[in-house]
């Protein structure tokens, strides 16, 4: 059992007011999502701050969607896929990996702290790794405080009108 500490447990009365980091986790179905299931099956406890959106493959991870998560208010984003060599689609995760430096660079240019983005490989057996990652990233973001990128975009005018439509509706 992983000794993952729970940070989200505040008494119900105060929880309504206390700030809690909101993190979006994009997970591939075959490895990382199954790894997250594994953490559950083993009853590992970890913070409730990461909400999972699943894809069939992390290769589907369009950088646009990561930016959208920040634009819609997420404090951090995690992208988890199969280990290199384990991809259900052979090399889908190679493409994911190739895109990540771009993401980091764009986030840097936008002034978003590197701790607010995490890309890792989590296999279907690595429930403990998943739970530890969630705890670690949640803790890092908790220290940084809220990002509130929508407010920043509004204040700077950069994102004015950046109510991005899904591709194809341009």
């Amino acid at each position, binding site marked *: 059992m992983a000794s993952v500490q729970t940070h*989200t*447990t505040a008494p119900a009365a105060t929880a309504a007011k206390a700030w809690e980091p909101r993190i979006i986790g994009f997970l591939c179905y075959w490895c990382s999502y199954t790894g997250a299931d594994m953490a559950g099956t083993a009853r590992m406890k970890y913070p409730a701050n990461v909400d999972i959106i699943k894809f069939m493959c992390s*290769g589907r991870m369009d950088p646009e969607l990561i930016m959208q998560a920040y634009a819609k208010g997420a404090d951090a984003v995690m992208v988890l896929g199969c280990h290199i060599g384990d991809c259900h689609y*052979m090399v889908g995760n190679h493409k994911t990996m190739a895109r990540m430096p771009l993401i980091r660079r764009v986030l840097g240019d936008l002034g978003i702290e590197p701790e607010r983005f995490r890309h890792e490989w989590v296999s279907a057996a690595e429930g403990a790794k998943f739970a530890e990652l969630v705890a670690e990233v949640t803790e890092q973001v908790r220290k940084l405080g809220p990002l509130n990128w929508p407010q920043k975009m509004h204040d700077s005018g950069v994102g004015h009108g950046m109510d991005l439509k899904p591709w194809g509706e341009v």
Partner: protein
Amino acid sequence: MTKNGASTGGGNGNGDASDVRIGVFICHCGGNISDVVDVKRVAEEIGKLPNVVLSATHMFMCSDPAQVMIEEKIKELSLNRIVVAACSPSLHELTFRRCLTRAGLNPYLFEHVNVREQVSWVVEDREAATRKAKRLISAAVGRVRHLQPLEKRKISIRPAALVIGGGVAGMLAARDIARRGMDVTLLEKSPFLGGRTAQLGELFPTGDDARELLAGLIKDVASDPRITIHTNAEVVDSSGFIGDFKTTVRLNPRGVTAELAKAAAAIEACPEQSDNEFDYALSKRRALYMPYAGAYPAYPAIDWASCTKCGKCVTAAGGKGINLEEQPREVTVQSGVIVMATGFNPYEARRGEYGWGLYPNVITLGQLNRLLDKEGPSAGKLSVNGREIRSIGFIHCVGSRQWAGQHEPQPDGKVNDYCSRVCCTATLQAAKEVKERWPKVHVFDFYQDIRAYGHGHEEYYTETAEKGVLFFRYNHATPPSVERDSRNKSGLVVKCKDTLTLGMEIEAPVDLVVLATGMMPRDIAGLVDLYRCARGVDRFLLEVHPKLRPVELAVSGVFLAGTEQGPMDVTEATAAAGAAASKAAALMSQGFIELDPFIAEVEEKLCTGCKSCLKVCPYDAITRDEEKNVAVVNTALCMGCGTCVAACPSGAIKQFGFGDDMVLSELDALLEGYAVVSR
């Protein structure tokens, strides 16, 4: 796209259709969920979301009564999108999709939310868990608004199989498939069927004679009119996909036909001598050769590497049956499925490893098996270089269970850290046979662990021990050493730190050292590339799932039979071959297969023909229509990873079931009201 009657016609994909009627069903899972998540409160709050017509809970949503309830509600309330919040989709997604089908609703108008494995079992705080469950369910509610009815893809399957590899596993697979009434093409790269099994003598645990067993199988495959056998056959190219593979096979010249009447005289006339691979180089053979009596096809072949085309065999044969100028030719094999049975190679010991290559009386277990064979190079006598053997030392785990840093890695930089499994019992069997045939020969066995794991294997251990084989156990960090014995001119000594006697230094003088070398997959890089086979870190081919989908390769329609997948004995290899044959035949008798509909589709008017998607597709499933200058997805090849969707710079590709619109709705719901902009 299908419409399933008026009730499911809703939803034009823009997410705000007023005719979207969502039913949400939240499971208590007998307390597994509801002890932590306040499901009543969640159901109440979710019920207030737009388009949600019903939000209900049930003690066990996967139970028959609950499924009947869902079916009834779909009909009663004309629901056209269903969300179930319960356990992991890996457990019951299919259960609920079927439930939708029974109710007359397209099964893909469904979303499964995981509130057990990913919420109630991992979050301690009830409030946090309840909020998280609510967020995830509202995300699903947002998502299902965009879902479209999807149909599984149906692909017809040609009732013919291609089996690559003519060893025991390949032949058995071919025989089993043909017996079910399908045509089979059996390819063997070498000139003869039989593979590695032909080189063995007695097979454990049944005591069968290997070549007798093969003879029966060879008779079966050779006499079956449904089986076409090509020896000297190499796969050079492949196209197509499950249901319709087209494989280009190069038939290398054998140089000999069945017309050759005076085979013995022709072989005798050949002046060339080279190492006989069938005896692991313990004997020599001619350039025109038969590996063993009873080999199939029953006429010799020419080894072009050593043949000088001197023509003496042609003269001896009376000019009939030998063609030294035969050219290779190519054939195309069309098949619905492919069974790979490419087998293994024994680990090649390094020069100096336990005296290998330094002393002629250090041999491998494969070589000992040839010596024990009564038709082998020593005619069954236990002698090496004419010298009678009076004592033998067996060393286990040569080339298996290696340690990085201690052992020299293979070309890929990795050591063979896996256990070869088979060598323990194979060694014990050889030791037992030696003791039975030559009771006076002393046998010493140096091992790390005896892993006689199989049915009837342990008996070999007890019997060899009873017959007086002495066992010494070494630790991998202090392996035995093999040295020249100064007291015995041509003999060797095995020195070992025996952990069974608390580290006592043992010296065993022996005439022969036998290395139990492990199994490695054959070099099949060409096939791995052609069929995009998944390989494990140990370089063996990888099945999709060892328990749920054994002997299936991730590439649909390709099955694995035998030792290409990992070390196996003949029993296990034929079991795998039988399984592969069953699965292949079942697929072919069905006549078609259904594939998930989550494939990619190109919207031509947005596509600029830039080919970005072509480069990232792991399956070469996308081509460019040069006339229209747009990308085209081959729906049979597309596996639905969505990598092309992310790569497309103009947003022209979408993936069914995983559209950007769906993801954005999920994000909206998950983050709703979180970051408030003050203007």
